[in-house]
């Protein structure tokens, strides 16, 4: 069984609570509450090698271990479902098909962390996912898997759904906590880290939907089983890849983490559309540097992708064919980040519109060779922004300059977009 998250039949509706139960759902929670200590659950997650699926890839168990044991007052778990990275839609697909898995995963995480009140922070626009979650929470309550004395134990848990109103920065974990508290969602300075001082000043863990949805299987089958699911020796588990763009069958699928890029595109997404040839892709959501045909065999796992010059990020693969102008694609991405900047720190607020402006000039055929160096300088300097939004925005720009410098130069020397010319005759 290599499918954990999509193991239930892929229906055109969500798996019902009864179906989820019939297929072994909530058994991991029952087992953990009866036989395992919170520390044992945490240790299983540490041993499993699970790395955060929200983009950063930080080891989940390690993140949990940062929560101090003896601080007074409540502690919180937040499930980050503010999935707004362009090219990324895996959390929506998961929640539209199996919201119960997240509820069980959160219950197990809360048990391990000693949390009695957890939140699911869900982005605007995911109305169906939010509805599914709310009914799944109600059903779990009714069945005794949430609320007081869960499964006859001393463990209590309340789950609340917090629906956001649309702003990309809310996905940044400290900004997310501000958003939940009802404060303008600028990122907070670290330290103190959320694990020590987070939501309402209390210890808080923020995990992605996919990360938490993996926990029941880890508890049920053990860390070694989980590790063995990966296609790479150093990897662990499966990964949801959501493919979009110029492929024959764009879709969200669960594969062993470390499945090579080319295999995902060719074997699972039917290859390129008729008449299309692969030019490049974004391998892991809007903030990751491009991959080209040279990266076809790169295993899609955190370390190999980083070694190849990009980031696995969210696993949102956006595929471009030969008709795509890479300057225009980069401009689209930078426009997104410039618009979504919260404006709180100067490098991001001023830097992103400046970079956008240069790319607009180059794309329009009014660029100057000196612009290339200015762009390069900004790729380095926007690392000094307060949070990861501006450096993330520079990912595609860095990739553009490294992999497609010739195309940028051609825009400047010809005074127009060469690709759109080829594409449209």
């Amino acid at each position: 069984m290599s499918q954990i998250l999509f193991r239930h039949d892929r229906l055109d509706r969500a798996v019902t609570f009864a179906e989820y139960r019939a297929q072994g759902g909530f058994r991991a929670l029952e087992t953990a509450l009866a036989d395992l200590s919170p520390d044992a659950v945490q240790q299983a997650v540490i041993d499993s090698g699970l790395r955060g699926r929200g983009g950063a890839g930080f080891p989940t168990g390690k993140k949990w271990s940062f929560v101090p044991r003896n601080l007074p007052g409540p502690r919180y778990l937040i499930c980050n479902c503010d999935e707004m990275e362009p090219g990324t839609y895996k959390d929506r697909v998961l929640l539209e098909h199996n919201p119960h898995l997240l509820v069980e995963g959160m219950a197990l995480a809360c048990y391990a962390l000693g949390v009695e009140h957890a939140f699911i922070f869900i982005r605007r626009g995911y109305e169906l996912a939010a509805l599914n979650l709310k009914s799944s929470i109600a059903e779990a309550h009714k069945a005794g898997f949430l609320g007081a004395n869960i499964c006859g134990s001393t463990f209590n848990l309340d789950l609340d759904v917090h629906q956001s109103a649309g702003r990309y920065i809310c996905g940044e974990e400290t900004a997310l906590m501000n958003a939940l508290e009802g404060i303008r969602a600028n990122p907070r300075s670290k330290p103190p880290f959320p694990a020590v001082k987070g939501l309402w000043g209390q210890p808080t863990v923020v995990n992605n939907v996919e990360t938490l949805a993996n926990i029941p299987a880890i508890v049920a089958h053990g860390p070694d089983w989980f590790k063995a699911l990966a296609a790479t020796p150093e990897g662990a588990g499966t990964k949801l890849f959501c493919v979009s763009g110029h492929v024959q069958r764009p879709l969200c699928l669960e594969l062993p983490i470390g499945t090579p890029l080319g295999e995902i595109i060719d074997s699972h997404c039917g290859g390129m559309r008729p008449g299309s040839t692969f030019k490049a892709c974004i391998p892991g959501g809007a903030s990751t540097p491009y991959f080209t045909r040279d990266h076809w065999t790169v295993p899609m796992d955190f370390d190999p992708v980083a070694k190849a010059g990009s980031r696995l990020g969210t696993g949102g693969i956006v595929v471009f064919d030969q008709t795509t102008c890479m300057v225009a694609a980069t401009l689209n991405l930078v426009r997104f980040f410039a618009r979504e900047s919260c404006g709180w720190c100067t490098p991001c607020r001023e830097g992103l519109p400046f970079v956008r402006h240069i790319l607009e000039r180059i794309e329009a055929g009014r660029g100057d060779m000196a612009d290339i160096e200015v762009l390069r300088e900004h790729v380095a300097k926007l690392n000094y922004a307060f949070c990861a939004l501006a450096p993330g925005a520079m990912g595609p720009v860095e990739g553009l300059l490294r992999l497609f410098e010739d195309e940028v130069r051609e825009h400047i020397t010809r005074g127009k977009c060469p690709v759109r010319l080829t594409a449209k005759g």
Partner: protein
Amino acid sequence: MIPTHLRQQLEQRVAQAITPREAAVDVMKELQRHYGWLTDEAVAEAAALLGLSPLQVEELATFYEMIYRRPVGRTVIHVCDSISCWAMGGETLLRHLEHLLGIEAGGTTADDAFTLLPCSCLGNCGTGPSLMIGDRLFGPVSPEQAAAIVADHREAG
């Protein structure tokens, strides 16, 4: 003035929150649903309900994409302009809708039926180009389908 039942419902929501302002987004959304957009009156009412100053509510309201501090039509059509939809013809879809509705992006039709807003990723990347009309997500949307979606909505609304 909002009706008593809505006020009671919102007061209840605020009372359930860990701190009153935790409910800020919900309160703003409900008031927006009532008025059609977050009017100055709604900002003042939200502030009173949340125990905040109108400026504190304003600071939040202007932050979020789905809170409208300017009048919008009865239905907002969001057209995704992020990378996956862009690659699949999102710009063409937006131009087509502008033509169809006789307005520019950002504008509202003369009969106040629709406001057309380009927006960031809708999370529907596998089936781009996408649009959201009210709370409903559609994709992939061809120009012909866009016309049908708008016509259906006009009829239903």
